[in-house]
């Protein structure tokens, strides 16, 4: 029962093969059994979920239907859920119960989903390994000594372990695609502005974007169809109709032109991942795609620019957590300054504090031009590289990560080596482009992902190519789950 995709669950619910209560009860008992060792969930809302499942079953019995009526999912604990604790992986919000829903939560609820709980994550989405969560690290279901990636590591692990068929995630520098790759699932980061950021706790506002994570591209299409769309409440939301992601999944790939950036296939990339990508390229060629080398000359400046822009925006965004209006407050503050300093010092973890300090530094008087302004100019160069490439090709193919999932503790001592994990995912965030990670092989019994990056608002085409690839390969069906 737990091996069912969202598409399969929809079919089973519609045909009366099983009820929403049955599938939700099954998955909740699975979460009970697996979560103590995996730690993918911070909160499990069993009672509320079963209540919603019963509602969905009643609505269906009364003839109602909506695209995801009765389908169980989980939300990353960065999305505000009215009345359900939203911690963002932080002590600062350990007891924070939002008085409102994120737009993504509202939209998926309107589509009929049943939320089983909230998934673990690096604190405030800052991390690539899920080792920065106040609620403990998540264990990769593929190996008990491996990280699941981050920051949406709980969502990726929950889907990989088949505790839930789909989850929401967010991606600021790779936080959907990198854990999807490490856990052998599919995840798409849409174009910046495609999915509303309202109620999604802000980390780096010019980069943050929500998206779906699931076993298959088809399931990602089903979820994204409901998540995407214009929202008045997000000033960076784009007012543009949402494409029919599901309707174009089976389009032919004849004539598809794909670029292979010469900067991506170099010595920094694991040889076995490179071989998996070559095999994937051969599969796509068989279906009519052609490949050419493209040049992204400023690619190597992505990580440097990102680690200025992201900390700068983080230091600004996180200044709202002051111990006054909501969130953690220290005991017995001596005065107002002590209240601010200790509430923030005790409420934030080490990586968050590190980024606040770096962000404060690069935004301080005398350094703004050299760092933040420079990084925003570099972003335009990186973006122009993609624009030139998209004159020649429809999309770009490369690895999602330089290596398979690394060991817990392996990179935690050196922030810079941890940051370099996102070398292939960060460029899409800096340019605001959509990117998808698709399982494309196993290396040392660990899954690895292929990344496709498309031009603005080409999510439908990315999902189409990923779906067609999944019709002729079975990497996305492999799971460590029993």
């Amino acid at each position, binding site marked *: 029962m737990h091996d069912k995709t969202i598409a399969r669950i929809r079919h089973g619910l519609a045909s009366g093969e099983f009820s929403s209560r049955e599938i939700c009860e099954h998955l909740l008992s699975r979460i009970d059994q697996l979560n103590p060792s995996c730690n993918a969930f911070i909160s499990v809302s069993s009672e509320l979920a079963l209540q919603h499942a019963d509602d969905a079953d009643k609505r269906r019995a009364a003839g109602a239907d909506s695209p995801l009526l009765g389908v169980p999912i989980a939300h990353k604990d960065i999305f505000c859920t009215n009345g359900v604790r939203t911690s963002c992986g932080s002590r600062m919000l350990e007891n924070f119960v939002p*008085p409102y829903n994120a737009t993504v939560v509202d939209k998926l609820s309107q589509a009929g989903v049943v939320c089983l709980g909230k998934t673990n994550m690096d604190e405030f989405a800052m991390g690539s390994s899920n080792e920065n969560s106040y609620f403990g690290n998540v264990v990769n279901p593929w190996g008990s000594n491996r990280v699941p990636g981050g920051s949406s590591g709980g969502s990726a692990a929950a889907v990989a372990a088949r505790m839930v068929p789909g989850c929401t995630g967010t991606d600021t520098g790779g936080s959907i695609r990198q854990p999807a790759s490490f856990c052998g699932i599919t995840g798409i980061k849409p174009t910046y502005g495609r999915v509303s950021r309202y109620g999604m706790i802000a980390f780096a506002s010019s980069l943050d974007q929500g998206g779906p994570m699931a076993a298959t591209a088809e399931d990602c299409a089903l979820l994204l169809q409901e998540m995407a769309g214009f929202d008045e409440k997000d000033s960076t939301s784009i007012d543009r109709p949402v494409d029919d992601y599901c309707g174009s999944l089976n389009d032919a790939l004849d004539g598809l032109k794909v670029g292979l950036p010469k900067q991506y296939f170099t010595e920094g990339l694991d040889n076995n991942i490179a071989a998996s990508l070559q095999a994937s390229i051969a599969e796509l060629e068989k279906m009519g795609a052609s490949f050419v080398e493209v040049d992204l000359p400023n690619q190597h*400046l992505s990580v440097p620019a990102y680690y200025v822009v992201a900390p700068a925006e983080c230091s600004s965004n996180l200044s709202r957590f002051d111990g006054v*209006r909501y969130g953690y407050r220290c005991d017995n503050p001596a005065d107002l300054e002590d209240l601010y300093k200790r509430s*923030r010092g005790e409420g934030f973890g080490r990586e968050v504090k590190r980024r*606040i*300090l770096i962000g404060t*530094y690069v935004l301080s008087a005398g350094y703004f031009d050299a760092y933040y302004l420079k990084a*925003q100019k*570099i*972003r335009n160069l990186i973006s122009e590289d993609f624009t030139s490439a998209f004159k020649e090709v429809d999309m770009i193919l490369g690895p999602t990560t330089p290596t398979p999932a690394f060991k817990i503790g392996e990179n935690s001592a050196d922030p810079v080596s941890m940051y370099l994990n996102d070398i292939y995912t960060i460029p899409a965030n800096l340019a605001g482009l959509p990117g998808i990670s698709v399982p494309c092989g196993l290396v040392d019994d660990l899954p690895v992902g292929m990344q496709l990056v498309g031009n603005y608002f080409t999510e439908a085409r990315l999902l189409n190519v990923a779906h067609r690839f999944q019709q002729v390969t079975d990497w996305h069906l492999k799971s460590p789950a029993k």
Partner: protein
Amino acid sequence: MAVDEDTVRAMAHLARVQIDPDRVAGYATEMSNVLALAEQMEEVDTSDVEPMAHPTHAVQRLRDDVVLEGNEREQFQEIAPETNDGYYLVPQVIE
């Protein structure tokens, strides 16, 4: 640029975040390493490049200046650490 311990303490004060005195030296090293990474950007001349404002060049939307939300003060203050009579309480600021 290498960051020294005084700079770490100054940034922590500006950001109003208390840091463990034992961690100051560690933060100085880590910040220096990240800034060294950032300084790779200097190799490219960007004097003729505009800074990015929005990836798809969207501009700020305007809407009519009308009230959209009701008064939700009580609901918001339910989750505050300390309130009284509709106000948020902090330690005394004015003697």
